Structure formats: C-alpha cells, structure tokens
C-alpha cells in the first residue's frame, strides 16, 4: 500500500501502527529525560511527564510517569497557540511556561517545555514535557514556602514564552533563569534534559508523518482520541448513575464539598460550593482541579488503556473563580499539590461509598512534600532534598492495602535509597522501616506507612514540609477502622520533641533527628470478619501486638 490514494492509506493497520508509535515516542521522551536530568526529584522521584499533542494542542499520548501530569501539557500548549499566531511558530522553536495563570497548571517549580513539530512545512503536532525544578527563585530555598501569600514570592514567572527561536537559544532568557535560581547548574541541566526530550520526540514524529503522509498521520491521531473517548463511554455506561455528594472536614477545620453526577455520557464534578481561596499557598488553579477529575475518571474507566484527549471528553467540571479550587491571580499556589490531592481523595471518597467493589478505602493521601537542605558536612557543598513520601493504602474488597507506596497522585515514582541519600546529602539515616501500631484495622486492613529517621550532621540546616491528613485520618469503608496520620517529629539533641505537618524553613542542627512518619491506610469491612489466619500472620510479622489483636478482632 505504497500509494497514498484515498482510503488505501488509511487502512486500519497503518493507523494502528502509527498509534503504537505515538506511545513509543512518548515513552522514549520520558526515558531520555529521566536519564539526563540533574535533580533527583526528576530522575529518581520522576516528578515529570511527557506527551504528544496534535496541532490544536490536544493530548494524543503520554509517557509513563505520574498520572497528575498527564493532563497538564494540553492546557499549556493551548495557551501557546492562543498567544502566538500560527505563522510565527517555526521549526526548531521551543517554548516554556511555568505559570498556572499562563497554562502552567501546577506551580512555578514545574517548567513546561513544548516544541512544535513540522512535516513538509506544516505544523502537525507538539511534543511537550513538564518537570519539577529544584529552585526557581522566590522567598525560600526550593521556592516553596508556606508563608507565601502571592505568586510573586514563589519564584520567577515565565508567562508562556519562546525559549529557543528556530534552533537559536535565547541566551537572555537562559541568563535570567540562571540568575534567579539558587541552584543554577541544576536548573540549566534539567532544562536541557527537557529540551533534549522534546527534540527527540519531534524528530520521531516528523519521520512518522513523512513516511505515512501527513493526512494519514493526522487521521491516526484523531482516531486515537476517538478511541480514548469510546473506552471511557463504554465503562461510564456500567457505573452506578446518579448524583453523589460529600462534605469533608480538613486538617485546618475548613469543610470541602463535592457533588459528582454520573450518567452514561457525562462525568460531572461540581466543586462550586467550597471555601474562598486561601491567603497562603494551598490553592489550585481550575486546570489543577480538572486534573483531579480526569485522574478519578481514568481510575474508574480502563486504567490500563491509553489516556488522551478523548478519554477525558465526558468530563464537565464546575468551579467558582476565587475559590480554593479555582484561584484568581495573584494567589500563591506553591503547595497546590496538597490541595489537589485533597480534591482527588474527596472525589474518591465520595464515590467509594457507592461503588466499594471498584474503589478501596482511603490512603495516607498526602504528597508528603519534604525539603531538607544545608551544607554537606563532608564536601562543603549545598544540598537540597526535595522528595515526596510513601505511605499506606486502604484495604479493599479481598485485599489488604499496599504498604509503603507513593500516593495516588504519583505513579512511576521512586524513593531515594538510604545509601545514596547518605552519600549525596551527608545525613545519617538511622532507619527506614514500616510504621506499625494501631489503626486501619478491618476485614481487609490498611497497608502500613513508614518511619524514616534523618540524623542531621551539620548545624543550620532546614526542614520544610507540607503534609495533609495529619489530623483528619485516612477514611475507612464498610465498618473498617480509620487509618493514621502523617507528620514529622523533630527529636532535638536536648531531648525535646516537636510535631509538625506544615512548616517552612524550620532550623535543625547537628545531632537533631527528623523523624518522618506516614499514615496507615483505612480499613475495609468489620474487623470481626477478618480471617483468623490473617490475624495470626499479622501478629507473627509484628505488624500488630497480640494484645491489640485480641482487643480488635474478637467480637
């Protein structure tokens, strides 16, 4: 079928092959970025995402990584398309944005890099990626501070601009970026990793489109999205239909509300009835709230099938501008991720009550953003740890919850080995263990969180954390017991202790121990129904004491 006459070139096999290749290219971009990034938050934690978009900026395929980044890139590219007239976009251009008020969706640390793809002179697609950069300026090291009240305090804003002009790097922009970062080498290295990834992706797409013809290529992309929509609709038809509502109190005493309406062709998430935006940085953009709705829909509808623009078409999101889930410029937004994970968990909890066969009990549900920095006692170099935490997941029908897994917001995310952390950061890691103790019991128990002890070896180091689910515990289902909270304990060398969940720039000194504790997931089902053999196994494994088991599991 060499000839490109009409239908012959659009045969289903060719389209299928192009669609497979779209997936392969997104994965290749991901692999490139992972291997070349400078910051451990990118290469180890994999706080990044890659994607391919069509000429109109609709997401066609996405690389592995974290689910919460899949829906970001289309919003960024659409802002670029609105801002730059088509005729000014040229081969070799690379654009950048990080501002949630300019298509950046998340927070200023996340740089979105996008490249237009051309074949035979036509704009046929975009390649793009997003990654968390270690420091983009702002009032605090790592750019995130719980004290921020305006986005201006959270770093350098890049309002959807051209970074590379037809292959020529705009040195002025690079100079401004370097000058505004506390870690310019990291920033530059990570940015080039991102550029390498979009370039490799663009090269592959051009080859594909040239080989099969632009029209066939575009038909394949369009068909892939239609396929995504079909997959969603086919599952949507099988879900319980109706309107479900939930109010939930938060750690800070505020109450969040969600109404979800499911019908055979729509998934409506109504977040209008929520508090006004926060003066602090725990707000999210509307786009951020959209991502939460997208993730929950995808979790319900064939989670293993491709996710693209079509997948999310049945979503309708209702928000109120000026609310915590639809912040108005210039609201601070640095800790948006804790707000997003709350929305995600809120929708999950709202629906789980009505479909416990499909969704398990609540998990520790925090990103667990943890920032530790100071001077490495052996090398004298500045170091900064930026990492999320792992914790316990809820029990579900037929299975205990997973222990020590990143939150539902993460995916192909890796924790940092103690051996590497000790060498790189000069901390002493005293233990890395499962967190045992009461909580999360049920017919199917919640999985365990963890305990990590970071021994500080140098005076004048700092800790910043932003954990939610510290006071309000992971929720249970069907008479299970609720899980336990997330927090950090500072064991000072003078013997005193402090507990924190949200704090910026806390000074820690030589001999202090930062103990991170993450929660056990919620239990599922009445503990009295738990298989005795499983109870005995838990006791033997030291996950629960014999006395506590006696108390909980005998009716």
């Amino acid at each position, binding site marked *: 079928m060499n000839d490109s006459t009409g239908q012959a070139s659009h045969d289903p096999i060719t389209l299928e092959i192009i669609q497979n290749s779209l997936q392969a290219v997104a994965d290749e971009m991901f692999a490139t970025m992972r291997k070349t990034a400078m910051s451990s938050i990118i290469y180890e934690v994999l706080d990044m995402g890659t994607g391919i978009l069509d000429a109109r900026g609709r997401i066609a395929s996405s690389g592995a990584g974290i689910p919460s980044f899949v829906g970001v890139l289309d919003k960024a590219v659409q802002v670029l398309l609105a801002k730059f007239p088509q005729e000014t976009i040229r081969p070799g251009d690379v654009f950048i944005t990080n501002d949630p008020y300019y298509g950046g969706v998340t927070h200023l640390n996340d740089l979105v890099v996008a490249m237009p793809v051309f074949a035979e002179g036509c704009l046929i697609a975009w390649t793009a990626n997003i990654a968390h950069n270690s420091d983009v300026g702002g009032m605090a090291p790592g750019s995130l501070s719980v004290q921020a009240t305006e986005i201006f305090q959270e770093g350098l804003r890049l309002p959807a601009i051209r970074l590379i002009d037809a292959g020529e790097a705009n040195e002025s922009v690079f100079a401004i970026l370097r000058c505004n970062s506390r870690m310019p080498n990291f920033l530059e290295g990570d940015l080039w990793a991102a550029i390498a990834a979009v370039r490799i992706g663009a090269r592959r797409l051009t080859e594909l489109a040239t080989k099969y013809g632009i029209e066939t290529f575009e038909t394949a992309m369009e068909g892939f999205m239609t396929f995504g929509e079909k997959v969603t609709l086919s599952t949507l038809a099988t879900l319980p239909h109706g309107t479900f509502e939930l109010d939930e109190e938060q750690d800070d005493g505020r109450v969040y509300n969600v109404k979800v309406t499911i019908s055979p062709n729509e998934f409506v998430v109504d977040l209008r009835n929520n508090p006004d935006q926060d003066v602090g940085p725990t707000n999210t953009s509307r786009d951020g709230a959209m991502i939460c709705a997208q993730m929950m829909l995808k979790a319900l509808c064939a989670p293993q099938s491709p996710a693209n623009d079509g997948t999310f078409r049945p979503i309708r999101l209702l928000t109120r501008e000026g609310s915590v889930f639809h912040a108005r410029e210039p609201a601070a937004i640095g800790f948006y991720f804790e707000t997003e994970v709350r929305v995600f968990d809120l929708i999950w909890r709202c629906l789980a009550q009505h479909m416990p066969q499909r969704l398990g009990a609540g998990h520790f549900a925090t990103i667990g953003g943890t920032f530790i920095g100071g001077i490495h006692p052996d090398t004298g170099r500045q170091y900064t740890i930026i990492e999320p935490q792992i914790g316990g997941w809820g029990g579900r029908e037929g299975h205990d919850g997973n222990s020590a897994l*990143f939150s539902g917001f993460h995916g192909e995310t890796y924790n940092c080995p103690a051996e590497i952390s000790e060498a790189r950061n000069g901390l002493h890691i005293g233990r890395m263990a499962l967190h045992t103790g009461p909580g999360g019991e049920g017919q199917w128990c919640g999985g365990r969180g963890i305990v990590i002890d970071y021994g500080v070896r140098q005076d004048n180091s700092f800790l910043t954390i932003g954990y939610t689910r510290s006071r309000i515990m992971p929720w249970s289902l069907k008479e299970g017991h609720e899980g336990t909270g997330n927090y950090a304990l500072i064991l000072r060398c003078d013997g005193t202790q402090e507990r924190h969940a949200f704090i910026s720039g806390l000074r820690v000194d030589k001999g202090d121990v930062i103990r991170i504790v993450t929660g056990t997931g919620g239990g599922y089902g009445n503990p009295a129904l738990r298989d005795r053999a499983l109870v005995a196994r838990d006791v033997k494994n030291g996950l629960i004491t014999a006395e506590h088991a006696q108390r909980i599991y005998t009716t």
Partner: protein
Amino acid sequence: MSRKTIRVTTDVGGTFTDLVCFETDHATGESHVLTAKSDTTPPNFEQGVLNVIEKAGIMASTIDFLAHGTTVVINALTERKGAKVGLISTEGFRDILEIARGNRPDFFNLNYRKPPPFVPRHLRAELPGRLSYKGEESTPLDMAALPSIIDMFRAEGVQAIAVCFLHSYTNSSHEQAVTAEIRRLWPEVSVVASHQITREWREYERTNTTVLSAYVQPVAERYLSRLRSGLTDRGFSGNLFIMQSNCGVDSVDSTSATPITMVESGPASGFWGAAELGRMIGEPNVLALDIGGTTAKCSLIENGQVRIMTDYWIERDRTSAGYPIMVPVVDLVEIGNGGGSIAWVDEFAKLHVGPKSAGASPGPAAYGRGGTDATTTDANLWLGRINRDYFCGGSVKADMEAAERALEALGAKIGISTTDVARGIIRIANNNMTNALKLISLNRGFDPRDFTLVAFGGGGAMHAVALGMELGVRKVVIPASASVFSAWGMMMSDLRHDYFVTRLMDMAEGAESAIGTLFAEIEAAATERFVQESVPAESIRFIRYVKLRYQNQEHTTEVPIPAEDLAAGHLADILAAFHQTYEREYTYRLDAPVEMVGVHLVASAAVGKLNMKERPSGTPDANGALKGRRQVDYAQDGLHEAAIYNGDRLASGMRFHGPAIVEDSGTTIVIHPGNTVSVDGYGNLHILLVSGEAA
C-alpha cells in the same frame, strides 16, 4: 592422542533439552555438526541432559568441552519453587525488602498490587553495626543476637540465609564476619552475602538480589552437583562450563556459590554468537535479533562488544514494579512477539499481536492440534512465506483449513479479508519488533544505518528483511544454522567475569592514580579467581570502563579507558570521550564538573573456543539449490512469484536475488524483491537491501 576435538553444548528449555555437538577434525579443520533433542525432565532436569547426550550417541568420555545453559534459576523464580529464606539486615532496615522503591507503574490504577517480598517480615532479622558511605565503621558490628536468630530460622524451617548490610559495597567486613559466624553455627545451611554478588550501591536492589540468590541456591547447587556427578559417572573428564547472563561461561563451583548470575543466560549465548559472528565477517556493529516461539529479543553490539549492565528486573512491566536483580546481564529488550503469538481483536475493533502465545500446545491453528487462535505463524503460512508443504521442516502437516478458519474469523471481527488480516498480523508484529529495535538503537543515539542486522532463532529470518528495510539498515545477515545459533554462541563464549564497583570520585586532578589503584585491586581479585580455576594469569584479558556523569546527575554513561595505567594527560581524553558519548545519546553537552560513580571491569579468558574454517568461494550460480517457485505475499511489498532455494544446498560464493525464499529444516528466510543475496565462506547469508523502499 585424539585427532578430533569434541565440543558439546546442552540447553535445557521449557519443553525440550537440546544438544549441539561440533566435532572438529584437526587435520582438515572442518567441523561436523550434530544435533539432538529429548524431553526436559522436571524436577530432575539433569536427567534430561544425560538422556540427550546418550540419545545423540556421544560417549561422555570423549567430550573435551561441555558448555551448559539452563533455565533452572529463572524457572525456580517465576514458579516460586525456591528455598525458604531468612534475611539478616542492618538494624533499622529489615523492611527495606518490603518498602522497595514505592513506585506504581500502573499509575492510573488504584487497585494496583505491590509485588510481595520473597521473605516475610518475621524471617527478616536485624543486627546492630553501621558503616558510612565511605566504608568507615561508625557503630561496631554486634553479633550477640545471631545465635538466637539462627535458632529462630532453624525452628521456622529456613533453608538459606541472605545477608545484606548498608554500604557493604564499599566495605564488606561486617558481612564477612556474619557469614563466617553463620557457617560456624550452622554449617549445613546455604548462606550468601551481598558483597559476593554485587559491589554497587542501592540497598533495596542489593538486598533483593541477595535474597533471590539465596532463594535459588539450594535448587541450583543440587542440580549442578547432580549434573556433574552424572557426567563423571559416565566417564566425562573434560571441562564443564555453565552459561552466564553476561555472555560468558563460568565454572560449576563458581556458579554454585552465586547461581543468580545464570538468571538470563538463555538469550546471552545467542547475542554473544552475534558478536562473534560480526567479528568473523568484519561487521563489528550489529543489531542482534532472536525471534522464538513466544518472544523476540534484541541487543545492540557496538564495535564487537556486547553491552553488559546490572539494571535487570524480573516480572517488571507496565502493570507491576517487579523485582530487581543487580547482576551483570546482557543489555536486551524483550517483547511478547514470536511465531506462536496470538493475534486478537479488542472490544474496540483494534487488532493486536501477542503477548499471549499459543505455546507448543495447542500451538498455531495450523498445527492441527485444536488451536483456534490465529498466530503469526498462521499468517506466515497463509501468505506463502512459510511453505505449507514443508512446515516445520516437513515434520508437521500444515492444517491450512484450521489456519484459514482462524484468520477468517479474526478478519470478520474488523471487516477485512482473510488475506488482509494475515498481512495486518505481519505488519503489526513487525511494527512491535521495529519499536523494540529502535529502543536499543535510535533511543540511545545509534543510527541503525550504521549497523548490520543479524537475525536468528526459529522466526528471525522470516521477519529480518522487513525490519531491516524499516530501520534503513543496509545488510541483513542470517547465520548458517540460525536455529542452533545460540548453541554455537555458547561454544564461542569465554570464561568471563564482569565486575561493577561503586566508587564516587570527582574527575579532577589526581583521579588518574586513584582510578588506576582501584582497577589494580579489582584485577588482582579477578586474577586470583581465574588462577583458582586453573586459568593461567597470562591468558586473562581485561577491558576497563568508567561510569561517568555530570555532577549531581543520577544515570551514568560508560566510557572505555585504556587497559594500562593512566598517564596524567589521559584524564582530558576520558572527559572528551564522555562528553562525546553523552551528546550522541542525549543531543546536548554541559560545561559542568564530571564525576565518576563507579567502574566496570571485564575479565575474560578464552577456554578452547571453536575456530571456524572459511571455505573457498565456488560458483556464483545458485540454480543448483533452486527447488521451485511459488506465490509469496510480501505484505506491503505486494504479491510476487518467489524463487525457492534449498538452504542445505547453498554453498560459498553463490549469489541470487529476491523475491526468494530459502528453506531448510529449521529456518525459513524471506527475501524481498530487490534484495541481493550472497553466501559467505562460513555458510552465512548476506542480504543486501535496497534502501528507501520501506514504506
């Protein structure tokens, strides 16, 4: 003495145990090849090996060199048939095995299940004692609790003990002390410590590797000792070597101590064979492709060197995090596409091929054993690519009606004809394989046009030309006896050890001497090990690599360095090579400090490998091998009348053109229109492709 050298390889597979024997006449240099096959005999796999030697009519006492490959380790792992293991960790870290890395590859799925650890929590013990990342002791080792741990392990029925302490990659003294004490307290138990297997950092990966090695150790030890005694009883007095995952062979003793190094030995011998073949025919840059019944595997060989890495995982895919095994394994990409892969249509009318396979039973529909699923093999038959009258070398009568029924039913689901669906299956299978080949080449910055595609295994030759055209390679080589190529590769293998050692170091002034000292240390240890295995020190060859990165990066780029001590000026050369390699792979370079994370040393010694004799070139006229003509459907390249050649009658120097098919009892070679084929002095087929015709 004997005027012949007899070299035998045996390979234990899932269904059959295969034997290949090369009998080399010293006077003529000619090798006579003999093959045999018998049933695999679980759980006493050694019996099958002894059986196949007998069946081949070979006297064990006449064998000079016996190389053995086995899936016993990978089977014990995947079937969960290993020993009950107890783990001893550093205090505060016994849960590392269960915490793992916390990742969830199936990232939209909220019902993901994390792979459970191989050792339950109550069998994970801890001992006080700490080493720093520099290898200095910060807390002394305290073994006071060890006797009670051993008692508990005994009471629980533990059969093997794994020991893994923090930072033991840089200082193994605590692990050595504990293993010595365990051997004293409980001499019968299997015990292995992490430093015996790997000297690289990352405590989860190292702990899991040690645990899995302990898990397979009793099974493997028993198997290897029975095999050795069975052979000895039959009068075998030659050298027995075991195939390893790093493309080398190793002694039985060495393999028994850390059997986990055999984990991926199956594909390794074929890739080594491709590297050896490339050197023999002057094609040092090779894309090697092995297509079997269930999977296709590929690996890139640059400059005659296979790439060996320690980033190997089992059971890892898009839906599971799997388990890491940090041992030297040939760098390969494997996909679920082979001759038996089932083609299917999903609920949204999309056609897929694999990863499910029809296996040996019922097999492809055309086997006529009740299989109703269309497979890649059925499509190849339907399109005339495989000879329906000479199916499986004439040993199976092709049930074309069953194949047609299966294909027709599949086509009906998406509204296309039987022939179109057969073409579709081939194109999708080829596309899957092309993507795998791109992963090992383009994805790492290598241009496939600079490589020769060497294809083997049962299905390699059937798809190689189409894949080669897609990738733009100029030449495809199908080795003589492509179906027993892995056995040939095993026979060409060296005794080989790969040492990976983590050592963080700035690539600044003075690094040369520190690097030299480190290599000298490792080379001394390697030499000692070889000498213990009766290999003379002067026959050992070393290849040195350093693993470099820009300061603060994670992933490293491996750069070869000279085998002799580094002079002062060498640092600049190494850095230049690093920047160049890095830029090729990632499109940019940085003006940033470079650091070394570790080194990789290859130590090898030839152990009586086969010396192939090249035959003189004869007539170019291939008509003597022509056995007929038939219609062959080349999918995108259309329908053509192809010349059919008998592979057994092709001889050195013959030339012919596509469209053609070459058949022998084990292989079908599909040659497209426009290709030019020549036969070299070893019987390999060189297929020159015409570029630019791929679409």
